[in-house]
């Protein structure tokens, strides 16, 4: 069904808004369930899906709050849906207990967080990048996260598909971060050739129900996932559980569970981590930037290059797991790393963590990280980054 839809829209050039790209991407990936609660600057995603999903036989439901939104999404996913919700910071905070449940119960789903200024109600119509850490560490308990962050309308489309694919593949809650400016700006987009888009569906079990275990010991392979109403009658709980999903407090069984939650991410770093590297080969100064800020960074690189400065850009498309290896390899040898971001230093904290391990007593004196931070609701401009580049001796 999803495929027919795909052919119709084959490779158009269209003027599209970021939030619209997310809705379109989700439908392309086979989304058939959306539940959520409106919040600026994410609301267009819900509005578009409320028009599109019923036309395709999918479900759209506006719930009473964000907690209900993520809850309905998880319920639907267990019943077999490709399910998603979208929100912004305040709603994301409310969803965190549910996100933790989805990770614990290994239930695929996607949460889009269109970041706006905070804390609290903050700046509803201004961009920020202040949920980078919340998206990783927000839910209680110790479980890794998969978080993607596009920097264009086209990439919003692509990474939404990827987020849904990864959720199905790794049986977890995947977060797509964007920001207010990305979400509301319009760009000409040439949608990718749909024939080449890979859609990942969960593997259905083929074994008899008596043999079915809802979880697998081995984190290396994709494990089949049954849905409610298909004869498998499994149990799902947020309690620590054994491989059948039944609650346990045996240390060895809990160990297996916690290890699997971690290893299914750490075993697949290559599959999960995506980066863009721009003019990094001969650069002595590197910028590390994500999302909307990376566009200003790229402009700054081009300007700096014109005046003969050797500057490059490293951009993570996957924020979590953090691209440790790329940062180590590509930034480890640079004299200066500039980290511009719309928060009080969340990405730079990670860059420092990784580089801190490489820098030693000798090179520490000659190397430095320059932070360019802004939390007043405005974007960081190319000139501001350029000024930071000029500081470099």
């Amino acid at each position, binding site marked *: 069904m999803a495929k027919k839809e795909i052919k119709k829209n084959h490779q158009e050039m269209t003027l599209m808004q970021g939030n619209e790209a997310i809705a379109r991407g989700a439908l392309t990936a086979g989304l058939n369930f959306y539940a959520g609660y409106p919040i600026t600057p994410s609301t267009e995603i819900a509005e578009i899906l409320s028009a599109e999903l*019923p036309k395709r036989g999918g479900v759209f*439901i506006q719930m009473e709050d964000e*907690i*209900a939104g993520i*809850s*309905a999404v998880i*319920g639907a996913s267990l019943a077999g849906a490709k399910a998603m919700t979208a929100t912004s910071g305040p709603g994301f905070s409310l969803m965190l207990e549910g996100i933790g449940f989805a990770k614990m119960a290994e239930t695929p789903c996607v949460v889009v967080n269109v970041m706006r200024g905070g804390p609290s109600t903050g700046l509803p119509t201004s961009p920020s990048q202040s949920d980078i850490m919340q998206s990783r560490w927000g839910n209680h308990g110790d479980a890794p996260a998969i978080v993607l962050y596009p920097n264009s309308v086209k990439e919003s489309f692509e990474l939404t598909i990827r987020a849904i694919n990864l959720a199905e593949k790794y049986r977890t809650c995947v977060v797509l971060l964007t920001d207010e400016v990305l979400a509301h700006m319009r760009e000409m987009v040439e949608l990718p050739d749909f024939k080449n888009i890979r859609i990942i569906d969960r593997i259905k079990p083929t074994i008899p129900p008596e043999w079915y275990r809802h979880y697998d010991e081995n984190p290396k392979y994709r494990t089949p996932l049954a849905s*409610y109403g298909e004869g*498998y009658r499994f149990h799902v709980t947020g309690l620590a559980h054994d491989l059948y999903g039944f609650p346990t407090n045996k240390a060895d069984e809990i160990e297996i569970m916690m290890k699997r939650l971690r290893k299914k991410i750490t075993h697949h770093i290559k599959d999960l981590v995506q980066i863009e590297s721009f003019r990094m080969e001969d650069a002595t100064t590197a910028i590390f930037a994500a999302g909307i800020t990376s566009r200003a960074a790229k402009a700054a690189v081009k300007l700096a290059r014109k005046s003969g400065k050797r500057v490059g850009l490293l951009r993570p498309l996957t924020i979590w797991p953090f691209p440790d290896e790329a940062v180590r390899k590509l930034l480890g040898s640079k004299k200066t790393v500039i980290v511009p971001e719309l928060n009080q230093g969340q990405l730079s904290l990670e860059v420092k963590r990784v580089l801190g391990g490489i820098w030693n007593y000798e090179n520490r004196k000659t190397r430095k990280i320059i932070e360019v931070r802004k939390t007043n609701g405005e974007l960081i401009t190319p000139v501001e980054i350029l000024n930071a580049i000029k500081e470099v001796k």
Partner: protein
Amino acid sequence: MAKIPQKIIHNYLRHRKQFPHVWCPGCSNGIILGAIIRAIDELKYERDDVAMISGIGCSSRMPVYVDFNTLHTLHGRALAYATGVKMFKPEMKVIVITGDGDATAIGGNHFIHACRRNIDLTTIVVNNNIYGMTGGQYSPTTPTGDIATTSPYGNIDPVFDICKLALGAGATFVARTTAYHVIEAQSFIKQALEHKGFSIVEIMSACPVIYGRLNKKGDAPAMMREMKENALPLEKFDELAPEEKQGKYIRGIFKQEIFPEYTEKYAELVASLQRE
């Protein structure tokens, strides 16, 4: 009195699941689960079509023991999870198990909105007048003046009448009974399951180990006796003089009404769009 065959329950239990269960001796949770199982058995539902979804609490531990599609969610959120399951698979029979705290404190918002939508879920509210699982803090249904671990001087809170709350919010099947009136409970559950729309059965339940002990209610049989004496059908309740009504409450079906059901309305919307 009708005979209660025991073998039925055994047939529905999960044999891979390790027993004993988590409940204290004398707890009503097992009696209520038994009534639910027998109601489902009488209705001859396919197990594959039944989903049992709960929140967090002693009562919410029910699903793990029974051989259905089962989901033990977060405190207060069972109805929202169930809404997701039901919207995506409307053909499934979805039963929600929730406690007085789970349904009307932390989950109060989901409760009133599920009632309002009239979505076809059958909700069993196990009302033991206390937060059992966490050791006896007062809930929205702990009678005013009663002792809880967080109201050592007596609770000053007014209480929720859960059935009135459901009626006010738009539920289309609303009933109350007690764990003592187990045959009636089974019958109400059966009717609730067969009802098209949001149905709720509030079942008063004895928590002798926590609530009973804190409030000197005696042992489990004494608490059962209290339910027998205090829960009256409407006619009997109405006959009482106002001073005799003290401590008594009504059991029975308060509402049973046909009103457009939510998943059916959604299906109609989908059908109308696809016809275009």
